[in-house]
């Protein structure tokens, strides 16, 4: 399947159910999703379109917006030359989306990192302990309101 064919079938089949989509750099189809649509869309991508590689999950903090956090998933396929990016917006009061652990085992660690850095809660991922940060670290350092100069040392300073 060429990129154009994949693009066409994705746009015909996923876009009506999932929401708006744009093509970025001729190589990545970007979907704006409602949080409820995430797992259903990912399952279709995996089972019907052969998106067998989960690349990354991260987030973007837009402090001025009501739906402050944008959770971004990336997928690639070993069969098709077109990547897919899914964007979901969540509010800071309940920054949670569904976990993809049941579809991609590799999601477990990446969701832990996203939880470390942005405080996104992944429903269904039962191991959200710190992975890059350490036990006892409070706050989420990649949020825009985390002070740049705040230090949380584990060893008492000499001076």
């Amino acid at each position, binding site marked *: 399947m060429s990129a154009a064919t994949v693009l066409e079938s994705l746009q015909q089949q996923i876009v009506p159910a999932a929401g708006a989509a744009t093509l970025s750099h001729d190589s990545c189809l970007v979907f704006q999703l409602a949080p409820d649509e995430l797992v259903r869309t990912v399952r279709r991508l995996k089972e019907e379109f052969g998106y067998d590689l989960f690349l990354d999950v991260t987030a973007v903090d837009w402090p001025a917006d009501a739906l402050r956090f944008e959770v971004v998933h990336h997928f690639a396929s070993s069969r098709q030359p077109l990547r897919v990016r899914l964007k979901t917006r969540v509010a800071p009061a309940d920054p949670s989306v569904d976990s993809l652990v049941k579809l991609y085992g590799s999601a477990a660690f990446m969701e832990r990192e996203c939880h470390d850095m942005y405080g996104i809660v992944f429903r269904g991922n039962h191991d959200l302990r710190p992975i890059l940060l350490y036990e006892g670290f409070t706050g989420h350092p990649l949020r825009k309101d985390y002070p740049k100069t705040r230090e949380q*040392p584990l*060893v008492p300073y000499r001076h």
Partner: protein
Amino acid sequence: MDARTVPIVPVAPQGAKDGAFEYLTTRKDELVGWARKFSLFPYPFVTACCAMEFMAVSASPYDTDRFGAALPRFSPRQADLLMVVGTVTHKQAPVLLKVYEQMCEPKWVMAFGVCASSGGFYQNYATLLGIDRVIPVDVYIPGCPPRPEMVIDGIMQLQDKIARAKHPILTKTF
């Protein structure tokens, strides 16, 4: 002449004809310092990109072996120079402190590169802004990474510091 720089002079006893050393006189601290400054056993605590420069300065073109500081020991218990090469994070600081505490006296610490010296260009949630917040440091080598010449200069400054220091070996004062 400064009392501290009295040269080590071989003294030939009366009537000796073959010129062999029978004994020589010096000061205890000078002798011990002279021995110690040429037998630095480094423990490389290597965390980041400065490691490349550490390898360059250890290899034959610059050759820290000329200063007696060539043989890295990979156990802190066998080392007396802790070379902290690269960025240290808050998460790593307990490990660095444990390594330092495991080293036997006498021991010295070298901060290799700006990250170990002051945190360098990092100022964020993760980075320890200079290892001297956690352990005492004897010599700082700036640079990102430092030139091999600067590392050699740092080693020589540390050697001077060792040579000029008191070296109590029998009691706390002698």
